[in-house]
């Protein structure tokens, strides 16, 4: 058990790796009523092809998400009810590279935690219960597919990374989920829900030894072997423009720039900080470009930009509602070229760095964002709370280099949803 204090953040974290390989992080939060736990496995929508016992296995799109839905079933009925009686409403999500189960409660935290550990580690499905879930998930897919924001996102990733499983919807399709059976679900659970592939985070006014004891008591003693996954080549060419029409009020767009993959370890956190700063410097709310585009009516308050990292996938994105998204993309490219050739004012850079540091501190108010940053750190080999030190070492030149390599010289894609003509 290892306690780390972060005086610059006013935080303390206990980390421990169990003999079965599970990483446990406990973030102490005195003064809060809520106690929060999140159990995550490094298995998401992208993990469709993997090597097991020497052979490559292909699984249907949407299987990790389907499995997430079915994990709440237990031999006794449903874990939801057990937790509800003790005031906890659990939930779960599946993203590209992770499936996570979590709850918060103000009372009975340790019994609730044991229930969470138990239902996530002990699968229980039957052919009937798996078949029944198809109707629910098909409706979930129907809901997502009607969402224009989802459509622009899906088409952007597809345009930037045509060969990557990141371009396949996490929930799969109504067609692909028909091929999912109880047997395939059991097999994927066996492969990926092993303690050594998982991370448990608890946040709140909790005792770390109780958390570790609960994990030791409930989870299996064996850890499991690392699983090799195939994320495709990432070499396909970028499609510059993807358009579709939907019932929307204004055109929506998302532009993206394909960036090189980031290394693991603390360098990954550093790349993230530099990427975020670069995006902010170029087109964040206080940038000259943002003001100009906003004043010209080319963007509105829905405009968002950022830098995303997934396994084998990295891209800068910007989007929102705009009547002329091609003009916005052009303006971003031109501004990037200008910034790289003219440089930026040191004051402006320091101001942005200070603002971003403040925003990172703010993230420490949210138990969910704390837990997710701990899991990211665990899966990618860095300590997420080292961000103040990273901010100390990043300089203006790092950020300008990022803009040159990842925006000026990178292939770009534009994904647009146009309103249907009446």
């Amino acid at each position, binding site marked *: 058990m290892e306690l780390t204090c972060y005086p610059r953040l006013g935080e303390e974290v206990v980390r421990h790796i169990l003999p079965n390989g599970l990483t446990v992080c406990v973030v102490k939060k005195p003064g809060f009523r809520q106690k929060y736990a999140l159990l995550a496995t490094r298995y998401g929508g992208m993990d469709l092809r993997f090597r097991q016992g020497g052979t490559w296995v292909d699984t249907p799109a949407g299987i990790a998400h389907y499995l997430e839905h079915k994990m709440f079933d237990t031999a006794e009925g449903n874990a939801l009810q057990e937790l509800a009686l003790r*005031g906890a409403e659990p939930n779960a999500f599946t993203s590209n590279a992770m499936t996570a189960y979590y709850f918060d409660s103000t009372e009975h935290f340790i019994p609730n935690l044991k229930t969470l550990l138990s239902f996530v580690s002990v699968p229980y499905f039957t052919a009937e219960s798996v078949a*029944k879930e198809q*109707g629910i998930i098909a409706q979930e897919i129907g809901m997502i597919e009607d969402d224009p924001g989802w459509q622009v996102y899906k088409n952007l990733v597809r345009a930037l990374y045509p060969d990557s499983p990141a371009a396949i919807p996490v929930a799969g399709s109504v067609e692909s989920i028909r091929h999912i059976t109880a047997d395939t679900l059991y097999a994927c659970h066996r492969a990926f829900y092993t303690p050594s592939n998982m991370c448990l985070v608890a946040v709140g006014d909790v005792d770390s030894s109780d958390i570790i004891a609960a994990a030791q008591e409930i989870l299996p003693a064996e850890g499991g072997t690392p699983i090799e996954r195939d994320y495709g080549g990432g070499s396909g060419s970028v499609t510059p423009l993807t358009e579709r029409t939907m019932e929307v009020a204004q055109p929506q767009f998302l532009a993206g720039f394909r960036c090189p993959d980031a290394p693991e370890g603390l360098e990954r956190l550093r790349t993230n900080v530099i990427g975020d700063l670069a995006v902010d410097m170029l087109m964040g709310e206080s940038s000259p470009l943002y003001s100009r585009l906003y004043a010209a009516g080319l963007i509105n*308050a829905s405009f968002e930009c950022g830098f995303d990292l997934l396994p084998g996938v990295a891209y800068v994105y910007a989007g929102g509602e705009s009547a002329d998204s091609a003009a916005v993309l052009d303006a971003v490219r031109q501004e990037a070229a200008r910034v790289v050739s003219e440089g930026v004012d040191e004051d402006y850079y320091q101001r942005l760095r*200070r603002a971003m540091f403040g925003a990172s501190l*703010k993230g420490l108010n949210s138990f969910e964002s704390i837990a997710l940053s701990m899991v990211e750190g665990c899966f990618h080999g860095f300590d997420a709370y080292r961000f103040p030190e990273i901010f100390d070492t990043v300089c203006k030149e790092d950020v300008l280099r990022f803009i040159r390599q990842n925006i000026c010289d990178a292939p770009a894609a534009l994904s647009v949803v146009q309103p249907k003509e009446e």
Partner: protein
Amino acid sequence: MQIDRREIMPQVYLTHLRAGQFKTGLISAQLVTPLSRDTAAANALLPAVLYRGTTRFPDMEQLCAQLDRMYGAEVSPTVRKRGESQCVGFVMSFVDDALVGRGERLLERGASLLGELLLDPVTRSGRFLNEYVDGEKANLIDAIRAARNDKREWAELRLMQEMCASEPYGINRWGDEDSVRSLNNRKLFERYRDLLATSRLELLYCGAAEPAQVQEALQESFASLPRGAVPPLCAVVRRTAPAEPRLIEETMDVGQGKLSMGFRCGSDDVPALILANLLFGGSSNSKLFMNVREKLSLCYYASSVYARAKGIITVSSGVESRNAQRAQSEILTQLRAVQEGQWEDWELAAALAAARSALQSLGDSQGALENYYLGQNATGQFESAEELIGRLDAVTPERIRAAAESVALDTVYFLHGKEDT
């Protein structure tokens, strides 16, 4: 949590929530005014126009630069509906001085910027800048239209418009497109003056600072607030459901249908209705979740919300059009079950545990606290989360049945694809 509430100027109230566990402080300044078709659009436009620039920071770039210098302080213009009132203003959050050094005085700087945003906009010949008004008018029209993009939200909005057509509650918090279009700089500036002088101002602070320090900072920042005759808070309009529920069907190019149902609650027993709603559809252990979703696999979501300030319950569900009738009748069957007291002991225990936990953890989020107390303050109630927990614990099954019995279907709204019939 220590709660202190006082009137610091005529019709200017400060709610002070003392909490040392956060990394940030939060200040909210909300003008509370009756929701009306004549003024809703102008009121909604004001925070956006004011956020474009102040005398000291006359454009977005300079305003954002100031926020950056304050360690990334955040300001959000807000437009909300609480009961039959419209609340417009700003919510600001900034890093606590303890994390950046006491010398920064971010609380004072934040309060002062908030006062400037509300009271000292950049002007030209005694008006707002035309380009700001025109730009934000276009943005507000876009935002009103964009409600169609999220079909679930759209179905809920249309339900309220139809069900409460003759009540202020049925008015969109952003007003309507035509009203926005008909606004000009002169009318907007007049409305601005009027709104400042005749609205109650609800200030709220949540963070580690002492009440005296906060009061002093805010009093100074809002010293020039004009004060005219402030009308009392509007009373909530309570209606009963019609004998026959109204049915509205509309089409859009969508794959999945959206079913929204609005119910009127006759009872004033708020704690009993909170529990009745949780049993019915307010959690993932509710009858709607367990039956409409889990047992019948009709949908991904079917849930209910109780708007206690207004006495309305709404049910929202995404279903395939061919299953809509089945879903609707199943939803009504589940309401009847609650009305007849058909629930297991564990269901009620879970409902109570969920309500308690939600209220207990309210104090863990500054945003949730701000939202809760604005809801209270704008509707003239004052009940702390702890007091409400006490009242929930005292609710009997008989009271839940009686409260549920008073819930009657008023309007059904169904949005479906153009090919579906």
